[in-house]
């Protein structure tokens, strides 16, 4: 393109600009209308930088007479008018419009203060003193206001979605979209393969099975010493009991060998007391599980007790098996009978545990008395001796306790040579029935007082 053509193109552009300026700002002299027209783009650019504003102000000051305050004021007014017209095209109340107005006012104030204090040459690289410090908080404030207004917009959109019961789309960065898709897919698969829901969300058997598995895992996570103590505890008491008999020169009690007699009594009692204590403790210790609708304190307590019964079944096998191989113990005479009575004693422990746990809900101090009660019961429950060893007039001291009946019936099943004359299964089961009834009533009475943790 030749120089002439360039000049013609520039002239045409200038002429179009002047025509547009005249049309938009016809009440201003042409030179000020052109300045105002240039200012329009500043209010609509979306740019946060104040440099274009400063450049326009300096360019306008250079191109026009600016010696007096009045002359400079006319230039400033023209630019402000252009900026206003620019922001009017968008939202004049927007945070961006306010930023541009404030930036222009700050630049004008600083230039004017400088121009009045000294002779200033408005060269393109001129920057009024303190400009950066003045503009920085303006941009910061704009960004803060923009963030707030964006949040308001999000809140408004969310409320619309909520009121329409629609999913509001949360914006996620591109690099997280694949994660979101994968998670959605996993949820969809989990929902699709979920066991069909019928009425209740969780059948009782499933809830119980899930809890038993969980309690078993908790038992496994107990310290190794605690697990070992389930074996050592009965062994220590058994050794004490055996030593008392041996010191008295007794090696057989009513046709029962002392080591096995002691082992079966003490291990069963340890199981009984542990079932009680664990069931009682879980009323408080596992209140977190009450946040699941499927679980009540009694369910949690009973599963805890069942887990300990299961743990003691291992203890029995280990002690009887190991002791038999070592030549210390004899094997049971009637296996089903032994298992039956051990289970009965365990269930009695569960019922007592539920009663104690229920009392502890209303009287938090009660569990402190539980060991004392348990020791007292131990003395009258045929752990150390059976009723037939006592004179007839003293037998009622132990025979009021249903546990002494169960212990003696257990030993009757275990030993071939011993058949208890005093133990009465009917008495035990009647008492056991009352115990279960008392447990059910007591837990029902305090159920509403058991708060989820």
């Amino acid at each position, binding site marked *: 393109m030749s120089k002439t053509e360039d000049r013609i193109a520039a002239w045409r552009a200038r002429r179009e600009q002047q025509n547009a300026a005249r049309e938009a700002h016809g009440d201003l002299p042409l030179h000020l209308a052109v300045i105002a027209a240039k200012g329009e783009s500043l209010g609509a650019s979306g740019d946060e930088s104040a440099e274009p504003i400063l450049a326009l102000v300096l360019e306008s000051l250079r191109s026009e007479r600016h010696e007096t305050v009045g002359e400079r004021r006319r230039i400033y007014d023209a630019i402000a008018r252009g900026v206003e017209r620019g922001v009017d095209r968008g939202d004049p109340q927007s945070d961006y419009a306010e930023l541009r107005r404030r930036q222009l006012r700050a630049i004008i104030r600083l230039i004017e203060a400088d121009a009045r204090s000294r002779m200033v040459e408005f060269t393109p690289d001129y920057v009024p003193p303190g400009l950066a410090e003045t503009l920085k908080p303006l941009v910061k404030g704009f960004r803060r206001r923009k963030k707030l207004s964006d949040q308001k917009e999000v*809140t408004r959109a*969310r*409320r619309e*979605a*909520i*009121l329409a*019961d*629609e*999913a*509001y*789309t*949360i*914006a*996620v*960065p591109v690099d*997280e979209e694949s*994660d*979101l898709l*994968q*998670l*959605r897919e*996993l*949820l969809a*698969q*989990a*929902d699709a*393969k*979920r*066991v069909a*829901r019928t009425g209740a*969300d*969780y059948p009782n058997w*499933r*809830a119980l*099975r*899930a*809890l038993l*598995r*969980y309690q078993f*895992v*908790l038992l496994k*996570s*107990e310290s190794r010493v605690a697990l070992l103590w389930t074996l050592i505890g009965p062994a220590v008491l058994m050794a004490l009991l055996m030593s008392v008999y041996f010191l008295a020169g007794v090696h057989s009690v009513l046709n029962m060998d002392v080591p096995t007699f002691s082992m079966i009594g003490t291990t069963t009692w340890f199981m009984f007391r542990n079932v009680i204590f664990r069931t009682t403790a879980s009323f408080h210790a596992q*209140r*977190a599980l*009450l*946040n*699941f*609708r*499927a679980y009540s304190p009694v369910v949690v307590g009973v599963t805890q007790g069942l887990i300990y019964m299961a743990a003691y079944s291992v203890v029995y096998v280990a002690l009887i098996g190991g002791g038999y191989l070592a030549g210390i113990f004899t094997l049971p005479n009637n296996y089903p009978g032994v298992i039956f009575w051990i289970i009965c004693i365990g269930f009695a422990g569960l019922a007592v545990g539920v009663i104690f746990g229920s009392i502890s809900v209303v009287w938090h101090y009660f569990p402190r008395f539980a060991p004392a009660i348990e020791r007292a019961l131990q003395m009258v429950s045929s752990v150390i001796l059976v009723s037939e060893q006592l004179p007839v007039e003293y037998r009622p001291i132990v025979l009021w306790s249903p546990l002494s009946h169960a212990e003696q019936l257990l030993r009757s099943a275990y030993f071939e040579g011993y058949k208890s004359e005093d133990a009465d299964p009917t008495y035990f089961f009647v008492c056991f029935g009352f115990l279960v009834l008392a447990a059910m009533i007591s837990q029902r009475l305090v*159920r*509403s*007082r*058991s*708060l*989820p*943790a």
Partner: protein
Amino acid sequence: MIDLFSVSDECEVFGREVVLFDGLDFRLPPGRYALLSHSPEYRPLVMDIIGGLRPPRQGWVEIEGSVSWPIGRAAMLRSKATGIEFVYLVADLYGIERDYAGEFVSSLISRPEYLDVSLYVWPPWVRQEFNFALGLVPEFDIYLVDSQIPSDDSRFTRLWQALFEQRLVGKTLILSAARPKQMLDYCAKALVFDDGQLEIETDLEQCLERFPIRSAREAVGDITNAGVESGADFLF
């Protein structure tokens, strides 16, 4: 739908026996509710009753559909179990395949390596993420949320919010949070507990002004400072 029939209940709150409900009959239709009360310490107790987690002393509660546990309740995760074992408990309880549940939670939370560690030693923020992530695994008809919903600028929050929005469509939500903004973001109506009564208010914003959200600490502070202004001489 949740129905309360002649519900009366008393509870011990910070050592005081308080009457929560007295013969209340109330029906809560499906919807998204912000649980509001002048006394924030009552909100979990009310949530327990209407969510069927605790039976009232008298009367009964009927709930149509499945109810979540109070998602976000911190005490839920006081356990010696590891995170993955807790995931399995939830999966077993709600009939979900363990593998899907485990993979979902480990893919969502920021620190999946903690899943094999006992919950006792988890940092509180990981535990909270886990708590909320787990709440997405089973699909419920009624969601109870008893905590502030995650709102920080993180991958977990963005993904969790996106998935929770999806889960909530057509479901009921009862939210007890300490941030009014979250109430507005997630709830359409207010479920107001005041003076032993439950009421549904449609104008949530106005309700939030009437029942400014206070922490339990502030509320208890009011009680323990009673008499200070009047210069009662039993306070030193």
